[in-house]
């Protein structure tokens, strides 16, 4: 990891909510980010199955999409989520960590467009997909 990425890693992992969920930035490169979240019993949304709540996956997707925007070569000063849609394709397997990968595929002067996917350790099938739009804050 480059110096810039190590700083981004420290920054993201220090966000109180990201820290509470145990998120780890694994990769950050020119508009693409990868963040992992370990399985934890406190994240369970369905007590009968032990499956993680969709909201925890949302938090992971949102953080990963924001990181992708911040790492875009256009070098935005800051960003905030305008809208984020998540599709839950299947239940994440209890006990497995979840890894999200987000790609910021287009940026205008004021809006960034992002797509993301989430997988558990059964890597061949997706757990969830997301599409989002984010603000682009200009440098002052």
């Amino acid at each position: 990891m480059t110096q810039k990425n190590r700083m981004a890693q420290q920054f993201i992992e220090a966000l109180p909510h990201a820290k509470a969920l145990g998120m780890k930035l694994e990769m950050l490169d020119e508009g693409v980010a990868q963040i992992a979240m370990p399985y934890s019993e406190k994240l369970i949304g369905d007590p009968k199955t032990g499956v993680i709540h969709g909201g925890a996956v949302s938090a992971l997707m949102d953080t990963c999409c924001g990181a992708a925007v911040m790492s875009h070569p256009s070098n935005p000063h800051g960003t905030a989520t305008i809208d984020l849609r998540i599709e839950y394709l299947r239940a994440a397997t209890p006990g497995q960590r979840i890894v999200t990968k987000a790609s910021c595929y287009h940026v205008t002067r004021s809006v960034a467009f992002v797509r993301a996917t989430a997988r558990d350790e059964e890597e061949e099938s997706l757990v969830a997909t997301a599409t989002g739009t984010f603000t682009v804050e200009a440098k002052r």
Partner: protein
Amino acid sequence: MSRPKPEPVQKIKQRRDGVLRALVEGVPYIQFLGIQFERRGDELTGVMPFKEELIGNPLLPALHGGATAAFLEMTAIITLSWAYIWEDMESGALDVTKLTPESLPRLPKTIDFTVDYLRSGLPRDGYARARINRSGRRYASVHVEAWQDHRDRLFAQATGHFLMPGRRG
């Protein structure tokens, strides 16, 4: 013709509050975020008291978009499940004397969920209410609104589609 005597108010409250408590306490992620539900008749209001762990941007500071999304999704799911349970709870089909996560119906499953972030979430308590726009045998469509200081100044809203659990029997 004589009408059946109405149930004592305490008995009704005890039953409804007991079922709601069992529903909410069974979900670890609700406990993790610290979300509570207040009930007026069948109307539920989700309350997410502020705590440090919910912060996403320490500079502003602002609530994490993921915490907001989870709060909205949780409010939608509990409101939907509550509406689904209501009839069985009131008719006696659901045994309210022994309530465990196992004896309650399964929770609806989220198919998709779209969140609009209207303004940044301030470091203070948030409230949310869901409206079930359609609830069929298999699918439901729910809209949720969240606010902080002013009911008509929403900081986020969301729409989601849910797969309903199968009816017993």
